[in-house]
C-alpha cells in the first residue's frame, strides 16, 4: 500500500479511536465506582454536542471571535454535561443501588431514549443533521495521498491531554485516591471517612464531561451532528470498555483505539467493501470476549479504575 494512504488510514483511525476512547473511559469510570452500566452515556454525548451548538448559535450572533466562541462552547458543554451526569447519578442511579443491576441498566437505557428523542423533538428541526461550525484552523498539508489537517492534529493533541489529565487526577490526587478507594471497596472506603455519595457524583461528573468533549470533537471532526449520533458511539464505547476490561482506564483507551483499528482494517482488507466493517469489528469483539472474558488489561492491573 502507498505510504501516504497508510498514513491517512492511521490518522483516520486515531481520530475515531480517540472519540471511542473518551466514551469508553466514561463507561469504565461509572462501572468502577458503582459496578453499573450507564447506557444513557452515548446520549449524554449527543446532548453535550447540541449544548455546544446552542452556545455557538447564541454567542455567534453577539459577534464573538472564534477563540472565545470555542472556549465558551467548551465550558458550557463540559459543565452542563457534568451537571447532567451528576443528576443522573443522584436521582436515577444511586436510588437504585439496592435493586438488581438490571434495573439500572434499563432505567439508563430508557433515559437515553428520552434524551435522544428530546433533542429530536425540541431542538429546532432536530430530526435533520445539523452543521457544526468549523472553528479550528483548517489549514492542511498534503503529502501525496495523506492530507494532514491542523484541526485534526489539534483535536488529537487535546484528546491526549484530556486523557492524561484524567489519569493524573485519578492517580496523583487525593480525590483520585478516594475514587479508587471507593472502586476497590465501598465499605472500607466509607469507614475511612470517604463521602461515598460525593465521590460517586464526582465520577459521574468527570465521565459525562468527557462525553461532552467527545461530542464536541465529533462535531468538529465531521462538521455535522445529529440526534442519533450518541446511540452508535455509546454502543462502540461500551464495547471498547469491555474488550479493554471494564474498570480499567488504560483498557478503555486501548479498547477504543483497537475498535477503530478493526473498523479501518475491515474497510481496507475485506474484499466485499465496507458494508460489513461493523460486522467484522463486532465479530472480533465477540471473539476477544470469548478469549478474555475479563478484558485485555483487567488481569494485569490489580486495582480497578
Amino acid at each position, binding site marked *: 500500500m502507498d505510504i501516504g494512504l497508510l498514513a491517512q488510514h492511521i490518522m483516520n483511525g486515531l481520530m475515531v479511536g480517540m472519540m471511542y476512547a473518551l466514551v469508553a473511559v466514561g463507561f469504565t469510570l461509572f462501572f468502577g465506582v458503582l459496578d453499573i452500566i450507564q447506557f444513557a452515556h452515548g446520549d449524554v454525548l449527543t446532548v453535550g454536542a447540541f449544548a455546544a451548538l446552542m452556545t455557538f448559535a447564541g454567542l455567534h450572533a453577539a459577534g464573538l471571535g472564534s477563540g472565545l466562541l470555542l472556549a465558551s462552547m467548551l465550558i458550557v458543554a463540559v459543565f452542563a454535561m457534568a451537571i447532567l451526569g451528576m443528576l443522573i447519578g443522584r436521582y436515577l442511579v444511586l436510588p437504585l443501588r439496592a435493586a438488581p443491576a438490571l434495573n439500572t441498566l434499563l432505567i439508563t437505557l430508557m433515559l437515553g431514549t428520552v434524551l435522544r428523542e428530546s433533542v429530536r423533538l425540541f431542538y429546532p*428541526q432536530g430530526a435533520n443533521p445539523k452543521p457544526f461550525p468549523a472553528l479550528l484552523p483548517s489549514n492542511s498539508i498534503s503529502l501525496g495521498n495523506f492530507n494532514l489537517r491542523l484541526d485534526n492534529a489539534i483535536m488529537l493533541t487535546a484528546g491526549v491531554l484530556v486523557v492524561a489529565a484524567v489519569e493524573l487526577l485519578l492517580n496523583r490526587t487525593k480525590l483520585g485516591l478516594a475514587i479508587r478507594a471507593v472502586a476497590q471497596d465501598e465499605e472500607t472506603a466509607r469507614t475511612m471517612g470517604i463521602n461515598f455519595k460525593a465521590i460517586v457524583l464526582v465520577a459521574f461528573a468527570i465521565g459525562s464531561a468527557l462525553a461532552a468533549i467527545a461530542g464536541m470533537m465529533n462535531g468538529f471532526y465531521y462538521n455535522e451532528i445529529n440526534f442519533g*449520533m450518541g446511540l452508535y458511539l455509546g454502543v462502540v464505547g461500551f464495547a471498547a470498555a469491555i474488550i479493554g476490561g471494564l474498570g480499567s482506564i488504560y483498557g478503555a483507551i486501548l479498547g477504543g483505539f483497537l475498535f477503530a483499528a478493526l473498523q479501518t482494517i475491515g474497510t481496507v482488507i475485506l474484499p466485499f*467493501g465496507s458494508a460489513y466493517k461493523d460486522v467484522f469489528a463486532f465479530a472480533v469483539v465477540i471473539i476477544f470476549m470469548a478469549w478474555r472474558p475479563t478484558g485485555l488489561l483487567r488481569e494485569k492491573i490489580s486495582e480497578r479504575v
Partner: protein
Amino acid sequence: MFKLLKTGAAMLLAFLCLHSAAAAKEKVKVGFIGPLTGGVSVNGLGGRNSADLAVRLRNSDPKAKYQYELLVLDDECKPNVAVQVATKMAAERDVIAAATHYCSSTAIATVDVYHKFGLPVVVWGAVLPDITYRNKYPEIHRVNGTMINQNETNAELLTKLGYKTFAVIHDTTDYGKGHNQYFSEALAKRGGKILGTFGVGADQQDFTAELTQIKALNPEVIYFGGLTPIGVRIRAQMDKLGIKAVFDGTSGIVSDAFIQGLGPLAEGSLAFREGAPTDKLPGGKYFMEKYAAQKYDGAPEAYGAFAYAAMELILDSIEKVGPDRKKVIDDLAKVKDRDSIIGRITFDDHGQNTVSLITKYVVQDGKWVVWEDSEYATGKRKLPRQK
C-alpha cells in the same frame, strides 16, 4: 333486524341511484389511494386534490358520458394498511379503475391484490422499478418514471460533460442497492468506468476509511445512492480528506436539509428526480390555474400533476370503452403518444410510461436549481474537474 335494515337501505340506495341515473348521466365510480395521514401526507393530499380536480373537470364537461364519483382511501404509506385498503377498493365491483400510491413500499405490496381482483390501476407517484417490472400484470400502469430512468439521465449527463471515472457509494437498503445497480448499468452502456463500489450502512457516521480508499482510486465523480443524512456526511468528509470530485446524488438528497446541513459545501452537488417542478411541465400552467380555481387546502406538491394525469387516463378510457374493468385494461394497454399535462405518455408491455420525465438538479448559491436554468449548464460556472 339489522340485516333487514341494511337490505332496505341498499334497496333504497339502488332506487335512488337508478332514479338519478334516469334523470341524469350514469354514475361511475373511480378510486384514489395515497398517504393522507402520516409523514408524507402532504404529498398524498396534493395527489388526492389533483385526482379530484380531474374528476370535477370531467363532471363539468357537458360532453362527458358519465357522472364520476371518486372513492378516496388512505394507505398511510404503510404496506399492511395499503393491502387492506387496496383489497377494499378492488372488492367493490362498481369501482372501475383507480389512481394509486405515492410510496414505493405500498405500491409494490398491492400489485398482487389488483391483479387478483382485476382492477386496473395507474400508479401516480411510486418510483420503485419492480412495481411495473417484477411481474407482467396487465392491471398495473405507471405514469411517472422510475429509478431506472433517473439513473439513465444521470449517467447521460455526466458522460456528456466528459467525466469518465466514477466511484460509487450506496447505502445497503433496497433504495441504495437499486440505485447502484441501475446506475452501474446505465454508465457501462455509455462507456464510463466505475473504479470502486462501496456499500455503507444507512446510518453510518464515519466514511473516512471508505473515502480514503476512494481517494487512492482518484475518480472524477463520486456517485452516491442514498438519503440526505449520510449524503451530508459523505460530502463533508470528502472535503476533510481533500478529495476533489463531483458529488453526484440521487433523488434521495433533493431536500433543503441537504443544503442546510452542508452550507457552502453543497455548491455544485448534482441530483436527479423523477417528475418535474409543476411549472416546468408542458401543461403545468393550465393545471395550476385549474387547481387554484378549486381553492384546495394545500398545494398539489411534486406529484400532483402525475395524479391528475393518471386520473385523466382512466377517465378517457372509461369514456371510450364504458365502465367495464376488462375493457379499460385493454384500452390502457393501447396508450401510445397520448398528450397529457406531464407530456406524452406511452405504456410499454409492462404498463410503464416510457417517455418518462426526469429533472436534473444542481446546487447553486444554496438552492436546488434545475440544471438547464443553472450557470453550470451555460458554462459560467464549472463543476469540479470539468474540462
